[in-house]
């Protein structure tokens, strides 16, 4: 074998940006392993309990950017108690000692305390980017420390976090010398911000490209900001309550006219729908539009707006758009790649919402569609089959029929055939969420055809253990499996225990798995953490082994049971 000096190898590895490529390269030989670990600057850890911070630091001494994910996905839907875990503080404390050059931290579903943020802001002089998605545990005081102490901050991106808003003037804490901001997103904050400080901050950051405001920022301030920052590419409006045809409305329209670069638009937490025409000047350039937090914009206004957006690639809306609106999307947005339709009324039997017709029209009109999240009232096998034929390129297909176990509303059959068509046609499918009435048959199809599938979410489906087994046996690339309210029990769980080490995690809740099953699994697979998450009220009792487990979370780990598990979480 040719000998490459390490510097050359390192230079070559620089071009490997994907984690998987780097992981693969590190397995080739010891020399490559060594070069790779010294040159790795970005690390992604999909489950913060899979390894300890110390282990990370030991292998990769020069990390500048870390991404961490904490709680299991179903925590988003209140299925995981708050104190379950996912604390970032131990990571920050460990990195403070060993990664003085840390620049970026991206966290998802973790518990972030103000103390962590304070430490973060002080321990890393070069810190540049903080992205928090669906996190909790911090207040605006923590944000104030970041603002005040991170002298080279480029990115502060808060997405859908649960923040305790003390209404402190955290925005004022950005020093006058801070001119480096490129991205600022505080849309999820509920409280007021100091508007003067905001304006001044925007004015002194010439590189600002992305700005997402929260609902406390009124239209007049938005207008001033647009005037000061016409270079913005990504804008999240706060409130847009205006009188149509008033002066402020006219000013806002001309401010938008001057924003030649805005490609992404979101926000509108509160809005006067009849003022939306102010936004029309930028619509034709938009590639991304997220109005899923703007219930004030009803179907017709939404449609009028969308008609202007011919270049849209990503669209997130509420289901008040209706099938009619989706037909307009289909005829207007020929470049559409990602569509998400959220329920404006999460409870069944509400307003009309969308049906299979909307989905079918979009599949006909938008051949590039590859990512879908669709909450609807009803579905048919025929529609799914048509969609599968029209859009064979789906990589993410998540369908949620609001009424659990709802069959095909025309034929009253289960939706096995429809989803079967999807997995058969979409060879690149990586993520799939099922809903509606489903038998074991759909899992047979998934096991047979969904070769690339990495993440599968199942609810209220299946008849027997066979269903789960089809999936475990068939999907070679499965990484995450989450199941709720399905009749899968110990037999399904224990048939192929080795499988779980090839996966990141398995979640099963309200299924037929028993305590005994969990114990057996834990015993056979020491490198798995088998956690049982109890109802806090039941901790006192010593349950019978035959008792069914309400919530089970299984994940592979190199470092054994975690030490921060609360009382109600048992690691078997």
């Amino acid at each position, binding site marked *: 074998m040719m000998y490459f000096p390490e510097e050359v190898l390192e230079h070559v590895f620089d071009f490997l940006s994907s984690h998987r490529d780097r992981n693969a390269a590190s397995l080739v030989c010891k020399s490559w392993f060594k070069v790779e670990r010294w040159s790795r600057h970005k690390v992604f850890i999909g489950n913060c309990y899979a390894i300890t911070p110390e282990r990370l630091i030991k292998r990769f001494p020069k990390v500048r950017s870390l991404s961490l994910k904490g709680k299991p996905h179903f925590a988003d839907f209140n299925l995981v108690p708050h104190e379950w875990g996912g604390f970032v503080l131990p990571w920050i404390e460990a990195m403070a000692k060993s990664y003085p050059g840390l620049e970026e931290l991206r966290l998802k579903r973790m518990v972030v305390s103000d103390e962590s943020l304070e430490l973060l802001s002080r321990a890393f002089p070069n810190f540049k980017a903080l992205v928090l998605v669906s996190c909790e545990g911090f207040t605006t005081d923590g944000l104030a420390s970041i603002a005040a102490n991170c002298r080279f901050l480029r990115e502060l991106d808060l997405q859908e976090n*649960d923040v305790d808003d003390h209404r402190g003037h955290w925005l004022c804490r950005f020093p006058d010398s801070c001119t480096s901001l490129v991205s600022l997103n505080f849309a999820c904050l509920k409280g007021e911000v100091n508007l003067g400080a905001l304006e001044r901050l925007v004015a002194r950051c010439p590189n600002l490209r992305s700005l997402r405001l929260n609902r406390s920022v009124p239209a007049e301030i938005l207008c001033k900001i647009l005037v000061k920052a016409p270079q913005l590419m990504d804008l999240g409006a706060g409130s847009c309550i205006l*009188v149509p045809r008033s002066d402020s409305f006219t000013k806002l329209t001309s401010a938008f006219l001057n924003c030649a670069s805005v490609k992404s638009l979101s926000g509108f937490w509160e809005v006067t729908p009849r003022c939306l025409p102010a936004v029309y000047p930028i619509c034709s350039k938009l590639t991304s539009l997220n109005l*899923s937090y703007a219930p*004030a914009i*009803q179907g017709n206004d939404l449609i009028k707006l969308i008609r202007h957006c011919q270049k849209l690639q990503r669209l997130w809306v509420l289901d008040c758009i209706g099938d009619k609106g989706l037909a307009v999307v289909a005829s207007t947005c020929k470049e559409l790649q990602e569509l998400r339709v959220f329920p404006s009324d999460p409870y069944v*039997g509400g307003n009309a919402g969308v049906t299979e017709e909307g989905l079918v029209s979009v599949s006909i009109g938008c051949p590039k569609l590859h990512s879908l999240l669709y909450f609807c009232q009803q579905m048919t096998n025929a529609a799914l089959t048509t969609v599968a034929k029209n859009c064979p390129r789906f990589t993410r297909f998540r369908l949620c029929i609001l009424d659990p176990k709802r069959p095909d509303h025309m034929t009253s059959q289960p939706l096995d055939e429809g989803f079967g068509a999807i997995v058969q046609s979409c060879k690149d499918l990586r993520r799939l969420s099922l809903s509606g009435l489903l038998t074991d048959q759909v899992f047979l199809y998934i096991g047979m055809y969904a070769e690339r599938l990495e993440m599968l979410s199942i*609810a209220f489906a299946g008849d027997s253990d066979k269903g789960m087994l089809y999936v475990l046996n068939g999907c070679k690339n499965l990484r995450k499996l989450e199941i709720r309210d399905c009749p899968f029990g110990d037999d399904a769980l224990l048939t192929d225990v080795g499988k779980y080490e090839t996966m990141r995690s398995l979640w099963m809740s309200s299924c037929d798995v028993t305590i005994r099953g969990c114990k057996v699994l834990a015993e056979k697979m020491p490198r798995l953490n088998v956690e049982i998450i109890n109802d806090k009220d039941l901790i006192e009792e010593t349950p019978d082994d035959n008792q069914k487990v309400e919530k089970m979370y299984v994940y592979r780990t190199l470092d054994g049971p975690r030490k921060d598990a609360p009382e109600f979480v048992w690691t078997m």
Partner: protein
Amino acid sequence: MSPPLTVRDQGEESNVSLVASSASANSTCQSSPGLKEHYYMGLSDCSSAESYVISNLSKEKDTNLNLKATELRLGIPGSPSPDRDLEISVSSSELAEKPFFPLLPVKDGFFSTLPKTVVSGNKRVFSDAMDGFRELKSSAYGDGNWTFPTSGSEKETAKVQGKISANLGVNAILSSRSLPNSAAKPVSIKEQPVASSTLLKEMMSSKVLQDGPHTLNNTNHDQMPTNNNGNAPAAKAQLVGWPPVRSFRKNALATTSKNNDEVDGKPGSALFVKVSMDGAPYLRKVDLKTYCNYLELCSALEKMFSCFTIGQYGSHGAPGRDILSESKLKDLLHGSEYVLTYEDKDGDWMLVGDVPWE
């Protein structure tokens, strides 16, 4: 003339009297049996009212100059159009004798929309009337979700009402004073004045406009996340974590719905009110929800009706025309002799286009 009595005296909302006036200039007072008589005189011999109004005038004069030509008041029930001419040449003395707009009887706790359209002018003891008004409002609002077409909570609404009284007082004085000077005709916002019952009917019709979406809203309410805790749809038990929507999103939508509900019952619905100007060949409709305050409403009305006036008051001139050309009176400006109108159920001729097609 009896001294003005206040609604407050009544103690109970349902006892508010109807004060209707006849066509005559005399102040008369009709009362139905069982209802107490009330007689509101705006600029009557009530010296306190006068001084109140006058003192307000000096304060408010500057801010309200552009209102001087728009006398907003409710039409008088029982009086056909010609009577309104009486108001044109109003002088303080005549005003003194004129009966003012009536309060509608409150039926079954149904509170009329009167308050919203009662941007009435010169005829009340405002603070008193408004107080009673507030009482009425606070009781009936619980049911009907009637709110002022301004944003904000109940507290703010009370504030707005307070503002109304000031404005009304001022409008009254200004209009009465300025009328002789201005060539403009007074504009009145009216509900159909023929009889109290038709007045009520008009209330109903404009309520109906809101009723449609309003009732929708009521049913939606039951299913909105805001009301989730009590009012989950009866048929379905609620599953934890279903549908799989992030709690952040659920909470955010709930907050927004709550805010919108405080504002106007259902986001997107409109509150249309008929506006008539004496002598105009047709009436117009305005969506009160698109305005945040009286100033805006007045200027909008001014723009809307300025094409009918012979001369332009104020310094609008060319800009005024430009703005107007974008308005629905395009046809007129471009010289077309004809506009499209329709006759509504009250017999008024309305300009086509004011109410959105949907």
